[in-house]
């Protein structure tokens, strides 16, 4: 049938304009996977930092490198977004903020809040703001 020819044969998720709530959900997954990928590095750094003085200094040097600082900022975004979205999901579990208008607002709050917290973290990590250890 000619009328069906122009219909998409598959759903391309990238070409559908997603509602902001769906983006929170997708970012929750992406941030979670990012942090899972970082887990071996975290466990490695924890072990190294506790092993001996040389290991601790090695960790301090590693964390001082620009590449790892950038990675820390990215993981900072993943963590803050994941936590804020997680709190939102838990509130939804208890039927809080389930109304569409409210759900849309809290979804934006998660995105904006995560970016603001990441900016603060980035300031701490790159030494623009005072108070970062090491």
């Amino acid at each position: 049938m000619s009328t069906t020819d122009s219909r998409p044969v598959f759903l391309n998720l990238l070409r559908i304009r997603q509602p902001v709530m769906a983006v929170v959900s997708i970012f929750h997954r992406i941030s979670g996977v990012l942090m899972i990928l970082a887990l071996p590095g975290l466990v490695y750094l924890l072990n190294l930092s506790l092993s001996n003085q040389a290991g601790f200094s090695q960790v301090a040097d590693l964390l001082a490198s620009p590449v790892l600082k950038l990675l820390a900022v990215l993981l900072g975004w993943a963590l803050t977004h994941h936590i804020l979205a997680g709190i939102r999901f838990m509130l939804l579990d208890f039927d809080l903020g389930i109304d569409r208008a409210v759900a849309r607002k809290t979804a934006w709050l998660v995105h904006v809040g995560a970016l603001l917290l990441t900016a603060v973290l980035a300031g701490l990590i790159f030494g623009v703001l005072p108070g970062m250890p090491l």
Partner: protein
Amino acid sequence: MSWRASSGLRSWLMQRLTALYIVVFLVMFAFVWGGQTITFETWRAWVAHPAANIALLLFIFSLLMHAWVGGRDVVIDYVKSASTRYVLLIIFALGLGIMGLWTLRILLLVGME
């Protein structure tokens, strides 16, 4: 409702309990170390304290369990082939298990001294 793993209820609860502990620990950690200059001595002494040692161990184990429940969902949702799925999940579980044992080892070593 069944309490078996297959019902998903246990995973659901596990994910929320571990999430809560992770956030509580992170807040506590930031409270303890925020603004402090960490040296090897102060860091190791803190981890050697039984309360911090157990709290840190619980934190890493919570991360690993949380990663397992969440990562398993992602794999099951996106990996369609059953065999690939099983292989991936086995590698994932082994990886998390190794990280758990590795952490347990260093924390016991530091805690025992």
